[in-house]
């Protein structure tokens, strides 16, 4: 007992240190640069990895305990929701298209984050960041799986979700989120951390994850809401990691500042371009809206993000230049995006529609400077045409931006009547861009972005037909062949919501559940 009394009691911080970085050692049988080969080439200078402040202190025993408790609750709710046909309690069947967009566009990114953080968690020479990254890697496979499991019951009853993983690697608009994450994991480990840990998890998560989960809560989707809420404490850890990474890199060497600033500029823009899909989801796809895209941008980026960049000013970091362009686009983004998807509704794995009259009024009230003037007349015209049996489906393929891979649908900053085109000549080829920012990103790393797997180019090159297709055969229908390659079922997954199988089934099933037939 005397011995026990003389034992030094460890503080929390010290205890966590012996549980993590105390395990590491200076190797002598292999060279450090061979063990951590990827840490130098980006030009980031780190002098002392011990200066890393652990953003959270969670040992594995505590991790298992907390996370298992969360999993137990989550799966109990998912099971109860499925057993009770909870899907019939969503506001209306149009809502389901939000779920489709999420599963095909976002869940595969959670998996990519899992692998990306395993890579970062192996490659940093500092033990502190390695442990933090590996824990995030483990969390991210959780998020991918809980989403797939939670949405599995929707897939059993509705279309568009049935081959989400196959679609993610092929379908034209899904190359936008896919190329975003491919871009991040193919960058060096430091850029990956700034791209995903900071720009995506810290700066933009409130504009991606939160709108989907809040939309679910507003629209009676308890499955999505529950996995969202269950991921909240994980996300909080990821955000503190993202912020610590930035501070740590910037405090290590003044030469790191211009590199980091360029990454923040790039990834804010790359992330924002992916959020185009979220903007349209918020304004058009949720039957019961939580807030408009413009409001979300103002609250979560302009106010909260503004405060963050003020805080980072002491390191010399400034607000990304692209914020000015984004501010000019916020009255237009969602309307231009939805208009495009309405056009290409035959080639999308979710349904599109013209909003109801009171929804148009809601949009007008949220976008007083743009909606009635530029977008309402077009939507009303499409509705009239559809009523006459002329539902318009665009069958020509759009030009894509070489960087963000979104069709060239955006207008000139400040002039919503003119499409914005930029181009660059590089090694005897002409490359096209949706904006100055995407063009600049390309110009900084042309050898990377000339590799882009652009869905439209690939279709024209004949790379997006099922194996054995003969495009020279008589009556060859290229759109049908591309949809087969996507595993997209014509007439079930695509086209207008009006008249869709989802619409009919939902009505019939809700009738069975609420009425005596």
């Amino acid at each position, binding site marked *: *007992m005397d*011995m026990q009394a003389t034992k030094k009691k*460890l503080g929390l911080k010290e205890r966590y240190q*012996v*549980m993590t970085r*105390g*395990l590491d*050692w200076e*190797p*002598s*049988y*292999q060279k450090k640069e*061979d063990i951590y*080969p990827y840490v130098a*080439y980006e030009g980031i200078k780190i002098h002392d990895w011990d200066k890393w402040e652990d953003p959270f202190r969670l040992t*594995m*025993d505590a*991790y*298992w305990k907390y*996370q*298992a408790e969360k*999993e*137990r609750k989550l799966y109990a709710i998912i099971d109860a929701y499925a057993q009770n*046909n909870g899907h019939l309690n969503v506001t209306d069947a149009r809502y389901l298209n939000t779920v489709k967009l999420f599963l095909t566009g976002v869940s*595969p990114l959670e*998996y990519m984050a899992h*692998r990306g953080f*395993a*890579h970062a*968690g*192996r490659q940093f020479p500092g033990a502190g960041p390695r*442990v933090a990254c*590996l824990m995030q*890697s483990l969390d991210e*496979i*959780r998020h991918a*799986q809980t989403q*797939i*499991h939670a949405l*599995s019951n929707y897939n*059993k009853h509705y*279309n568009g979700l*049935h*081959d*989400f*993983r*196959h679609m993610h*690697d*092929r379908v034209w608009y899904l*190359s936008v989120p*896919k190329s975003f994450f*491919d*871009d991040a*994991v*193919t*960058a060096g480990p430091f850029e990956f951390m700034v791209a995903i840990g900071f720009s995506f998890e810290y700066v933009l998560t409130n504009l991606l994850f939160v709108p989907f989960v809040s939309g679910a809560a507003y629209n009676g989707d308890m499955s999505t809401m529950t996995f969202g809420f269950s991921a909240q404490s994980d996300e909080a850890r990821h955000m503190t990691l993202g912020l610590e990474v930035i501070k740590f890199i910037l405090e290590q060497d003044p030469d790191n500042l211009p590199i980091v600033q360029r990454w923040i500029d790039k990834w804010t823009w790359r992330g924002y371009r992916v959020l185009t899909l979220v903007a349209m989801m918020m304004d058009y796809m949720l039957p019961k809206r939580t807030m408009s895209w413009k409001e979300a941008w103002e609250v979560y980026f302009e106010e909260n993000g503004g405060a963050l960049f003020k805080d980072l000013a002491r390191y010399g970091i400034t607000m990304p230049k692209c914020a000015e362009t984004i501010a000019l686009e916020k009255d237009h983004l969602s309307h231009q995006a939805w208009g495009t998807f309405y056009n290409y509704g035959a080639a999308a794995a979710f349904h599109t529609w013209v909003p109801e009259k009171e929804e148009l009024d809601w949009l007008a009230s949220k976008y007083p400077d743009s909606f009635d003037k530029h977008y309402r007349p077009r939507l009303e015209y499409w509705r009239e045409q559809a009523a006459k049996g002329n539902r318009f489906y665009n069958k020509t393929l759009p030009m894509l931006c070489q960087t963000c891979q979104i069709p060239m649908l955006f207008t000139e900053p400040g002039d919503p009547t003119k499409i914005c085109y930029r181009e660059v000549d590089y090694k005897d080829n002409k490359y096209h861009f949706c904006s100055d920012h995407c063009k600049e990103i390309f110009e900084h790393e042309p050898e990377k972005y000339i*590799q*882009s*797997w652009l869905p439209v180019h690939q279709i024209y090159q004949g790379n997006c037909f099922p194996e054995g297709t003969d495009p020279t055969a008589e009556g060859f229908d290229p759109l049908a062949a591309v949809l087969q390659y996507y595993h997209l079922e014509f007439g079930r997954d695509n086209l207008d919501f009006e008249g869709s199988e989802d619409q009919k089934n939902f009505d019939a099933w809700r009738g069975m*559940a609420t009425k005596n037939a």
Partner: protein
Amino acid sequence: MHIDLRTVTIKPLRHTYDHVARRIGGDKPASRYQEGTFDLQATANFHYRPTWDPAHEIFDTSRTAITMADWYAFKDPRQFYYGAYTLARAKQQDTAEANFDFVENRGLAQALPVELKDAVLRLLVPLRHVAWGSNMNNASVCAYGYGTAFTQPCIYQAMDQLGIAQYLTRVGLLLGDLDTLDEGKRAWMEDDAWQGLRRYVEDCFVLQDPFELFVAQNVALDGLLYPLVYETIVDDVLSSRGGTAVAMLTQFMTDWYGETKKWVDATMKTAAAESADNKALLETWTSHWRDRAAAALLPVARLALADNADSVMSDVVQQFNSRQAKAGVAI
């Protein structure tokens, strides 16, 4: 007695995702392991080559010399997806916590004979660094391996090994103090007994082939270390000398090894059964790393077993060989 609760029954359009249905022989209900594993990793239309490894795609089968017609032939017999994994570990963690409490509250650590306690610390504390090395190596296999069926268990294995390193740290702090950890690290860095093992671990850090790394770490090193240290030295030898309390503190490791080796064996079996080339390669790798691991562990075994070490080690190697033979790897 049967009671008939009525619910509104809707006939679903399908029972699982198409990519899962293609793998389980048609549209039928799938398990959470299947839905959470099959085809999760991207396989097609990568946009850019890694700037850190331009010779390969982001995920690339050619990072390893093992070839598989289908990387989803691998199955984790534990069917671990994240939820099943954390539930299993939380339960073990509960037991470990109760064991630590038991040893601490009853003063069992103080009751250990001094020379026994010293022997335990001399043996177990440096092993926290070995577990840490395994954490890094499994992170590597997870990051650079191919196919979720193969890589998913590796992130669990990586974090388990971090947990083991942390339990060993707690053993050091319970039976000793902060200086004990420092002394363990000094021995790890300097003492002859540990240098073979440290060299082994550091050599693994630079292995480029993720499957060879899997063999070197999870098959060869763990396949000798756990039976030697936990099943033999701690559970048998030290227990018979009055060290049962130590076996309580390392129960997690014993149980964990019993469980994880089923996955390791299943993985070897599947890869070896795929082709004669795979089998030959696995035999070469396994015998190479087995010999190195056995040589590296022998001086460590001597710390606790003295003259007995050689015969115990040769028993452990014998068991290891027959375990591999069952998995289809003849060495």
